[in-house]
């Protein structure tokens, strides 16, 4: 585990690095948060979404053909 002074020197000493890390972190957070909330939301509503309904229709269509 790095000591606190190395953390200070790499992230908090230069303001440009501090601000840059914040913006980079925000960008990464945006991407991760959106994809995780979307995947949870789609999982919570499984069966009701159009992609699930379309799959069901296709499966039923295959059954009818058989």
């Amino acid at each position, binding site marked *: 585990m790095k000591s606190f002074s190395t953390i200070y020197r790499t992230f908090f000493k230069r303001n440009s690095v501090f601000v840059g890390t914040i913006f980079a972190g925000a960008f990464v957070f945006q991407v991760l*948060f*959106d994809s995780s*909330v*979307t995947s949870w*939301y789609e999982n*919570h*509503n499984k*069966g*009701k*979404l*159009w992609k*699930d*309904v*379309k799959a*069901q*229709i296709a499966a*039923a269509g295959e059954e009818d053909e058989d």
Partner: protein
Amino acid sequence: MFTNIARNASRRAFSWTAATAPLKSSNTQRFLTTGAILTGLTASSLLYADSLTADAMTAAEHGLHPPSYAWSHNGPLETFDHASIRRGYQVYREVCAACHSLDRVAWRTMVGVSHTVDEVKEMAAEFEYDDEPDEQGNPKKRAGKLADYIPAPYPNEQAARAANQGALPPDLSLIVKARHGGPDYLFALLTGYPEDPPEGVVLPPGSNYNPYFPGGAIAMARVLFDDLVEYEDGTPATTSQMAKDVTTFLQWAAEPEHDERKRLGLKAILILSSLYLLSVWVKKFKWAGIKTRKFVYNPPTKKPQFKTPTFPPKKN
């Protein structure tokens, strides 16, 4: 002269409150007073707002309040059941579109919601739309495409009224948002037609009785009956099933942003509540020194701590 009166009045006021010393602590007293003031203000403003209109409605005039059905899209995290939207469009197309328009819904909005793009192109192509005139200037018709809007059954209001005994079937694209009670009202209305109107009810000619319709007399007769439609996914087409599906479809037509709105709402609530709790903690952290400061009173002792200095300084 007035300052004297004011001074005497305040002196008397001060002694009055001192005589009736409050039994509660000042914080509790402040809280109760604020609560009383707020309650008083709220009640007065509600009474005033109520007095601005005077709808003297009987229960029949108001319409029977529909029950709260357990829609699968009720709740802040629930999407529409898109299979129900698909079936609902079929019900609209086969039952309702004979009289009701759906002017604000474009064919393209249904792609990826309840039908594939080819299905919607096929459905749109079944209808005729006005085209640019030909070289001679004669009007032409063309097949529908995705960019077109769902066509209306009648060309204008007069034709609609003429075909429906003078009553205008309203456009359905916003009906779920436009009626008090929303989807619950619509479902109750569609399934709420009794066999006969109650005893003593006199309907105007051409009306039908429906308790959920304000006034009770609605121009539309019951249209949903069992097995009126044959669903392609094999769902039994009972009256209530068709009513549920068409109501879901109409709610989608009125609120196409519904699913995305709830997803974004979830994101917003998560972020904002986290930031709020963080700010509560930061405030408490910054205020900790002030909130825990102590005052110490050291009463003066008889002997002075410091001897008054003399010059030149006395030795001992």
